[in-house]
């Protein structure tokens, strides 16, 4: 009797086991690695849940991997032992690595001319050109844009007015003029200095693009693999000189390389009148300014009025979602469908409200201009859910959120504004940023410094190419 019971139990267990495996096989499990772990991660989880609710047979799980560098490292390790996700968020600096690694299926290849995937429409034309062009490799749209930002200027309007500045500065010369006008406020202790912003290599990349200049040869690595650095340019010298002028006159507060917190804090507490930062900080800075009690206005990133080309355009920053290659057709389609959903008009608009990252679609901007009640777009950080935007026009209510989209929308698309792509991007940033830092702080022979750094960076780049480029 007992034996039969045991046998029965074993059979039951086996049967249920087989049954549940059979069930599980019907659901396509997708894992997506993202670099965020704050409210932006909450947004991604929420959006994945919305997608999962639409598809019984697909389950997307968001995994937070802390930061961009770790994602690249962990994905590389995961490739060795098969513990890599179907979808991964890679930042702009990893573009060349993503291409060279041969580990990803390009979005356009997966879509293969279809106009919808699992019911999610494909409409490339809707994506802002300078964004889709950044992630176009050899003419193929490679990855799906998600968090996209660009630097913009932030101004404390009351302080500027106090100094008699009625028009917001637009150029480097305007900023220097404004700083001269603001000097009395510094002298009487109202503010600590004219301007501050994070001392980041990203801004140098932006300013090169604005002046229609390349960071590396072969047209920023877009016309062919980059083999040499291109720092020995007037555009780069002008950037170094601009910083030197700002700093040596005491107009600029320097808080160290890549320190984003302290300058933001200084500006929000009303100690400087001018700040530059990512558009992704728009929400945080707006909320801070409101709490401190000053009027915040934004303009596009200030440009070099003396550049022969004038203002050409800006590069985007941020990261995109890549789909691992070697997946089954069904899995690949599911991943693609998810990314199309993830970046559709409503979600892109909602994502924008969560931080200030630009909506990647023109239709999202239109949507935000013509809102109806019950839109459920605004991301509410404390509760971690979507609520209605009450205004009919988001941008009329919060004009500072439009600046970044305008800047990218107005940008000419060429190989300067598409941004550079080369393998040692992340490694090189501290070099060309550090050079400007050193010149800003100590002055010196700029030409000699540039020649030395350029040679060093070229050597690193060629080493990379030697290891990665096809023979």
């Amino acid at each position, binding site marked *: 009797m007992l034996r039969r019971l045991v046998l029965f139990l074993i059979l039951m267990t086996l049967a249920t086991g087989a049954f549940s495996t059979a069930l599980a096989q019907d659901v396509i499990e997708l894992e997506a690695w993202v670099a965020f772990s*704050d409210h*932006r991660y909450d947004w991604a989880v929420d959006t994945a849940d919305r997608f999962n609710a639409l598809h019984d047979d697909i389950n997307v799980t968001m*995994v*937070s991997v802390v*930061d961009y560098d770790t994602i690249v*490292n962990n994905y590389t390790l995961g490739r060795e032992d098969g513990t890599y996700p179907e979808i991964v968020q890679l930042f702009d600096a990893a573009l060349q690595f993503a291409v060279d690694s041969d580990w990803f299926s390009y979005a356009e290849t997966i879509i293969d001319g279809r106009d919808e995937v699992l019911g999610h429409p494909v409409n490339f034309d809707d994506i802002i050109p300078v964004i889709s062009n950044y992630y176009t490799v050899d003419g193929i749209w490679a990855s799906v844009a998600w968090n996209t930002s660009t630097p913009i200027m932030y101004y404390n309007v009351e302080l500027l007015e106090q100094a008699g500045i009625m028009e917001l500065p637009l150029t480097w010369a305007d900023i220097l003029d404004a700083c001269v006008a603001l000097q009395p406020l510094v002298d009487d202790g109202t503010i600590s200095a004219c301007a501050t912003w994070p001392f980041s290599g990203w801004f140098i990349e932006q300013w090169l693009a604005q002046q229609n200049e390349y960071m590396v040869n072969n047209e920023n690595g877009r016309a062919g693999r980059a083999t040499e650095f291109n720092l020995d340019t007037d555009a780069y010298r002008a950037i170094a000189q601009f910083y030197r002028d700002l700093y040596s006159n005491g107009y600029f507060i320097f808080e160290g390389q890549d320190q984003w917190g302290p300058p933001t804090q200084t500006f929000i*507490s009303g100690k400087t009148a001018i700040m530059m930062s990512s558009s*992704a900080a728009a929400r945080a800075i707006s909320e801070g300014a409101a709490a401190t009690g000053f009027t915040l206005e934004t303009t596009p990133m200030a440009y070099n009025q003396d550049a022969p080309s004038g203002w050409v355009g800006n590069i985007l920053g941020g990261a995109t979602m890549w789909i691992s290659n070697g997946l089954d057709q069904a899995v690949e389609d599911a991943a693609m469908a998810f990314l199309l959903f993830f970046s559709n008009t409503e979600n892109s608009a909602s994502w924008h409200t969560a931080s200030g990252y630009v909506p990647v679609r023109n239709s999202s901007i239109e949507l935000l201009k013509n809102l109806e009640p019950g839109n459920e777009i605004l991301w509410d950080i404390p509760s971690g859910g979507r609520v209605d935007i009450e205004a009919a026009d988001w941008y009329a209510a919060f004009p500072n959120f439009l600046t970044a989209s305008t800047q990218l929308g107005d940008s000419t698309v060429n190989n300067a504004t598409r941004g550079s792509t080369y393998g040692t991007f992340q490694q090189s940033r501290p070099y060309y940023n550090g050079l400007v830092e050193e010149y800003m702080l100590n002055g010196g022979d700029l030409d000699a410094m540039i020649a030395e750094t350029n040679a060093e960076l070229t050597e690193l780049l060629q080493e990379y190419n030697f290891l990665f480029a096809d023979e």
Partner: protein
Amino acid sequence: MTESASSRFVFDPSAGKERPLWRRLIPQRWYAHLILIVSVVIITFPMFYALLISTQSNPEVYNHKFTPGSMFFENLHTVMVQRNMGRFMLNSFVIAMSIAVGKTVMSVLAGLGLVYFRYPGKWLVFGFVLITLIMPGDVLLIALYRRVVSFDAWPHPYVALTLPLLASATGVFIFRQHFMTMPPDLSEAAQLDGASPLQFLFRVLIPLSWNTIGALMVIMFLFGWNQFLWPLILLRDQNLQVVQWGMQSLTQNLEVGDNFGPMMMGVIITSLPPMIVFLILQRQFMKGFALTRDK
């Protein structure tokens, strides 16, 4: 040793004499209190400032408010619930405890092997262990990862996580030095009684070593608690992640700017478990233990 017992022996020139009024008004050893209070104020200032910020909102931090802010419970909620820190702390506690216990057991055994036996080349073995103290572990992580994942039958990811960390050069060093201070008569007597080395270890050495064990446990617990890069690359399941991972996700501010309140709330909360372990073990620790070296 109790306080009164130790104070009997301490040199005090005024003992037994009639003390002048000013000596009686000022606490005894006022200079010690003074130095300690100054040290405590300076050393704990960053922690108390972190505590202050943990109650504040970002704008309150920006504007340098010196009074407790309005966001204590919100920040606590953000850290413990939204950012799942409670879970990470539990994970880290399990990991840190396993590491602390494992390291201590292995170090005690190794100490026994390095002191209570005669064999040629003993210093070689000791050097072999000690030199690992200087190997920069963070550089080896990728190679270690490859070694660890090449074996794919780990019963649980935490086994793969902790096992490579269980050998401790510091622990071996401390126990070796500690055992060398033990009077040789102990093991002579044990041998006369026919005790095996392991019996000697459990019946004699360990009961005499609780101070050292306590001290080592505190250090090793903290070592486990502060693990960050290794779990970060090894663990694929977010729910298994550790407390420093949680801390990092609170401090990371990609493009958007810091959230100071939750960040400092995290600092304070995650510093508490090691302190509790220390408080539990400090009676052992404060009895003192001896270190010595070859004679």
